[in-house]
């Protein structure tokens, strides 16, 4: 069986030379692909958290609490550096960066804030503007893409006793037309001799200074009770790395929580800011309030977990106020199957959503016809599925549902259900904890059965105050 290879014979006779593609498109395709790979990689690496130096624990660890158990399972403590998650699928971390390094050369710089060694691999996250500051033609989109696709961006070399080694894998991202600052995630495969090194030296093409970092080995297995500088808020642990100087306080927030918590953040997007009066802030000993400087964050290419405050260095007694934490929980496995409601006929569902700790009831489904005033712009030209839901406030009174977003799947004709192209809209829920969503998707009018999974956006309200030393 399977000895025939007719399809191979067929494809073998297709001559690639009969087809061509423009060079510009190739560059564009590679650029897009690298970004997808990087995004995918960071989704993976997100599970590796490293943070926290100067925070004081306000919410102490409670022995045998679920969070404590979680910590024991996944963390290693790195003296002087922070905490490293060590979950399934991630190789054992052997060493981490001792302290951040920034090397300047005129207008150019190379900054390494994260570095760690797993098995035989050294991974670095670098922020730099080398090669971009004076790069000719970088305003040209094609040149710009070529740069960030790695074609013209400078290469990083690991300098060892046996010569220079080019990085085995690099992903460029950033980018900022304004500051010319970009990021590179770099991987070097280390030989057995190099793994035991404490100091690693690098050269970057076009940058005339040596970049040197020092690594510390990880003391794995340290009990989390011995870790200070961590705030525990309900089931979510918050870490922060703080640096201060030149009138700027930089707070890099990260968090770890049980796996059902996704996309944990402290940043409020515009539509959420209308619901919550307060965002994260710092208060000094005199009660002066400092709000994050968003412009400074943009200039520093910081993500939404990076906060920058303009606070004179002499100001003491700083406290970080965290008014709320936002996160998602997802129900992608035990969705609700219903037959498609007919237009203007409400279908009762009344099923509890299968999510940990959920008190959400999916109440009804109906189809809102084309042009109905209820439909928001962009949806009016389609018949849309409306799903109404409500939540009963449970024991955790601080947790509230922000909205429930459906993900509709349709029969695939043979093996079950598959996702389909769709758009959803839902307004934020209020204190009554009720709301509805509107979804348009391909083939709605012809679909008889649907499977609905749900994304639920939550907020947990505090505030929590963390003394900063």
């Amino acid at each position: 069986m399977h000895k025939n290879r007719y399809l191979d014979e067929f494809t073998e006779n297709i001559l690639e030379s009969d087809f061509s593609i423009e060079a510009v498109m190739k560059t564009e395709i590679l650029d897009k692909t690298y970004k997808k790979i990087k995004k995918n990689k960071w989704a993976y690496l997100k599970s590796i958290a490293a943070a926290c130096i100067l925070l004081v624990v306000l919410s102490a660890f409670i022995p045998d609490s679920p969070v404590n158990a979680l910590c024991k399972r996944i963390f290693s403590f790195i003296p002087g550096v922070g905490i490293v998650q060590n979950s399934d699928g991630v190789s054992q971390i052997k060493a981490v960066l001792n302290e951040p390094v920034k090397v300047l050369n005129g207008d150019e710089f190379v900054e390494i804030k994260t570095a760690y060694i797993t098995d035989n691999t050294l991974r670095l996250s670098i922020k730099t503007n080398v090669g971009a500051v004076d790069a000719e033609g970088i305003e040209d989109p094609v040149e710009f893409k070529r740069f960030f696709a790695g074609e013209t961006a400078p290469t990083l070399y690991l300098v060892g006793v046996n010569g220079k080694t080019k990085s085995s894998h690099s992903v460029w991202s950033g980018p900022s037309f304004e500051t010319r600052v970009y990021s590179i995630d770099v991987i070097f495969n280390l030989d057995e001799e190099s793994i035991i090194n404490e100091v690693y030296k690098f050269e970057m093409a076009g940058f005339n200074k040596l970049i040197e970092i020092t690594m510390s080995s990880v003391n794995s297995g340290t009990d989390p009770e011995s870790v200070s500088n961590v705030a525990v808020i309900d089931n979510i642990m918050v870490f922060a790395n703080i640096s201060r100087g030149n009138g700027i306080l930089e707070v890099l927030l990260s968090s770890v929580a049980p796996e059902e918590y996704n996309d944990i953040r402290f940043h409020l997007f515009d539509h959420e800011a209308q619901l919550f009066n307060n965002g994260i802030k710092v208060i000094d000993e005199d009660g002066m309030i400092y709000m994050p400087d968003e412009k400074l964050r943009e200039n520093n290419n910081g993500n939404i977990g990076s906060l920058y405050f303009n606070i004179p260095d002499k100001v003491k007694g700083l406290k970080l106020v965290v008014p709320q934490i936002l996160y998602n929980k997802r129900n992608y496995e035990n969705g609700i199957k219903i037959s498609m409601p007919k237009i203007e006929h409400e279908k009762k569902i009344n099923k509890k959503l299968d999510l940990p700790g959920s008190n959400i009831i999916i109440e009804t489904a109906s189809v809102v016809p084309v042009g109905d005033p209820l439909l928001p712009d962009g949806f009016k030209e389609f018949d849309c599925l409306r799903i109404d839901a409500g939540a009963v406030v449970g024991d955790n009174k601080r947790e509230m549902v922000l909205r429930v977003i459906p993900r509709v799947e349709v029969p695939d004709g043979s093996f079950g259900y598959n996702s389909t192209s769709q758009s959803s809209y839902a307004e934020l829920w209020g204190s009554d904890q009720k709301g509805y969503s509107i979804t348009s998707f391909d083939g709605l009018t012809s679909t008889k059965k649907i499977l609905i999974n749900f994304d639920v956006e939550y907020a947990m309200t505090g505030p929590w105050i963390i003394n900063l030393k």
Partner: protein
Amino acid sequence: MSDDNILALLRAREQEGLSYLLDKYAGLMKYIVKNTGIENDEDMSECISDILFTIWKRINKYNQAKASFKTWIVIITRGCAIDYLRKYSKHSNVISFDDINEIPVSDNSYLNGLENNLLYLLQELSPPDNHIFYKRFVLGESVTEIAKDIGITQENVYKRISRGKEKLKDLMKREGYRYA
């Protein structure tokens, strides 16, 4: 660069391999994607990027015993193009693998199916009609194009495709493959 070298680079997680892969197969990918109904440059580059990303993610699933690397790429290309079309194109008059709706074509089921069973079955479709079947459903060429290329009538092409589908059904039955 040879397929073996590209394969080795990709398996070593060297992104450089994608660049070589694109140098060699971008034109063929574009041909298949275009045949599937994706015409404009923006969609074309996004779709081919999806294909590269899929190859990157699934490279360790490629099994030389089942198909040549080129065949595997062609099949991945066609699958991703159909998926892309299903996801992003609401209004398209494309004829696709959907025509043989016994074959699951969407995301995971399509690719998993191919890697597990379907690739074998497609390999086994024997002459004389397999060539036409492959042109239609693997390369996505139109019946008109095929008829012109082979020098037979469109009706004849349809007949041969239909025979190919029947053979495929038989093979699927033999393998215990479920179809509607």
